[in-house]
């Protein structure tokens, strides 16, 4: 019996004007465009300098900062209002104010204050800009002192040398981090939305009624809806792998087998959720809206935009109930670190739990009579 149901589903999908195109285009578009947009890297901070000293030291400081390549000098002026205008016009992100007697104070053993004023509307940018600037100034300071008092510099300090090594993503490439996460998002949208929508649509146009009076058992019917979306999910993710390889040169360090197994469990879970929602919704608008609401929530709490580890405890606890979060960890780990089943056991158990729970709920809550 299920054979016929599947045949019907596939025919409907292929005949649908939108669906086949979307299955191919959506992963392509998302993976080709998103990683370029989704970047938190801070580059090209625009700096406005207020130099009230006009001495070789103050000019050297400005030079040193500019040659660090983190900052772009937008203007040098002598008064605060001018610099503030640059910030108001969004031409500058950060102001550095070098006071009068800058050089004189340093040579005369006196401490001197410089004022750093970042535009803190974007807190992260301000934080990063401020720390970069402070550290460049610190290095400049040390250089000056070792020039002026060479013996002093040698004797006084203990130096702890720090050796930094970056593993798994040596070039610190942000795209490499985003691509596996985006695959999770694509899977979720395709396999979460579509099953929900397809069932409610049938409810609305009335063909569900015909299905309900047939002797098809509930489980067979739901399986008949799930299996096509499984296959769609696999196709979509395979396209994703191809794009990742061809466009970003990204090949998973781990094995494809592991990825496909996790993906299979995940699709099962998330389409189960879609079906549960569609069992409770009466109209298409409702179903779309509810699914959308959950998707948004899940995406925000999944670690796509911001790390889950940075969230407060209650939010991390909530995120544990989010299937996306688990798959996100799995994808990134297998792709970039080559983790295997035993290392990801916790996530596998979680996803299996979701799959059983959602699908169980889907079968139980499906009512043949309203």
């Amino acid at each position: 019996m299920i054979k016929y149901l599947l045949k019907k589903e596939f025919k409907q999908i292929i005949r649908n004007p939108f669906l086949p195109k979307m299955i191919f285009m959506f992963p392509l578009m998302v993976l080709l465009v998103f990683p370029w947009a989704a970047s938190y890297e801070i580059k090209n901070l625009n700096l406005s300098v207020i130099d009230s000293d006009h001495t070789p030291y103050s000019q050297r400081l400005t030079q040193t900062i500019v040659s660090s390549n983190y900052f772009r000098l937008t203007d040098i002026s002598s008064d605060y209002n001018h610099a503030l205008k640059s910030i108001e016009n969004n031409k500058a992100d950060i102001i550095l104010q070098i006071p009068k007697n800058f050089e004189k104070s340093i040579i005369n053993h006196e401490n001197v204050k410089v004022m750093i004023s970042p535009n803190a509307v974007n807190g992260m940018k301000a934080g990063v800009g401020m720390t970069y600037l402070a550290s460049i100034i610190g290095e400049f300071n040390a250089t000056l002192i070792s020039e002026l008092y060479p013996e002093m510099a040698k004797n006084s300090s203990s130096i702890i040398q720090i050796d930094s090594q970056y593993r798994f993503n040596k070039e610190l490439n942000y795209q490499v981090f985003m691509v596996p996460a985006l695959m999770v998002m694509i899977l979720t949208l395709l396999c979460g939305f579509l099953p929900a929508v397809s069932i409610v649509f049938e409810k609305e146009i009335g063909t569900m009624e015909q299905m309900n009076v047939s002797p098809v058992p509930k489980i067979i019917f739901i399986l008949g809806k799930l299996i096509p979306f499984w296959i769609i999910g696999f196709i979509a993710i395979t396209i994703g792998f191809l794009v990742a390889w061809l466009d970003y040169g990204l090949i998973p360090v781990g094995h494809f087998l592991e990825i496909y197994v996790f993906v299979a469990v995940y699709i099962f879970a998330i389409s189960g959720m879609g079906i549960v929602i569609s069992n409770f919704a009466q109209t298409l608008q409702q179903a779309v809206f509810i699914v959308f609401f959950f998707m948004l929530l899940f995406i925000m709490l999944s670690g796509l935009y911001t790390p889950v580890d940075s969230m407060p405890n209650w939010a991390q606890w909530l995120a544990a109930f989010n299937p996306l979060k688990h798959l996100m960890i799995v994808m990134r780990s297998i792709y970039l670190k080559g983790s295997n089943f035993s290392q990801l056991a916790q996530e596998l158990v979680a996803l299996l739990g979701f799959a059983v729970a959602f699908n169980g709920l889907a079968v139980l809550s499906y009512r043949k009579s309203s």
Partner: protein
Amino acid sequence: MKQLFSFIRKEFHHIFRDKATVMILLMMPIIQIILFGFALSQEVKNTKVVVLSTTSDEATRRIINRIDASEYFDVVGTVHNSDEIDAAFRDGKAKLAMIFEDHFSENLKHTGKSHIQLIADATDPNAANSFMFYASNIISNYQQDISQPQSGGGMIVPEVKMLYNPQMLSAFNFVPGVLGMIMILICAMMTSIAIVREKEMGTMEILLVSPMKPMYTILSKISPYFVLSVINFATIMLLSVFVLKVPIAGSFISLLIVSLLYIFVALALGLLISTVTNSQLAAMMISGMGLMIPVMLLSGMIFPIENMPAFLRFISNFVPARWYIDAVKTIMIKGLGLGAVLKDVGVLLLMATVLVTISLKKFKVRLE
């Protein structure tokens, strides 16, 4: 006029009878703001650290203590060799490994130099950069503390003054973003689906053959969503000011004007979508994929536009949310007036005019 009002009442009934949707429509901004405000943070905190140290001496213990005491780190255990570090990374047990040189304190005392190796799991490159920086800072602070103070003086002391957002709250960034997204969701997506539903059900035909002017039909469809958007706007503002403590530095009237303009643009978008599609599914897909995703990505709400490559920046100019978010940030956070956002207002006005004109032209008064 009376006709119009009875139709508006009808539309309100339609919507409010669907309690589930209304609940979600009103709850969604609240939940989003709470999540964004309290849960999402771009700061890298609670990074788990493992330590490899063959000698447990004073300096190592002090440094490890400082790292553990910092809110940015959590020392979770010790490892004994490089394989264990690898396993810890792959397990997700830790993201940073600190390796102290043998005889760390001794070397520091006798030769004045010693080594620490920091190995980072760079899967998330931004986080890796951040926590490496924090760790290096903590270590160099320790280094400064134990070094003899330089009697040379002449230190350059940076003093920091944050402009506009003294506590570096990330709320300032996303409150305008959430506003932008909710409005588009309600006004564009819901409106278009509602109008198309009538077409699909066939009741649009009845409306069109009635003596009721088509313009009134459109107006009556739009009004409940307009009201819902304004309610959501008020909710978000109240939440921002009283819960997130994000003050409105500029004039509230300017904010209201700009928001109303944006709602108008979003409604016009919904209208346009409804005139080009005939099925609810299509309307949903176009507004869902075609609007929500660009708004989330390209409007500057989450990812800064300056970081994007040129062609994406070009596309983002066509996303109305981008201009709205820009204007709200300027008014709410920088406290400037309407004069400073003339460009944003101008673009939004232009978009509204174009969209409304096209929609009206395309609105079919007859069924083909």
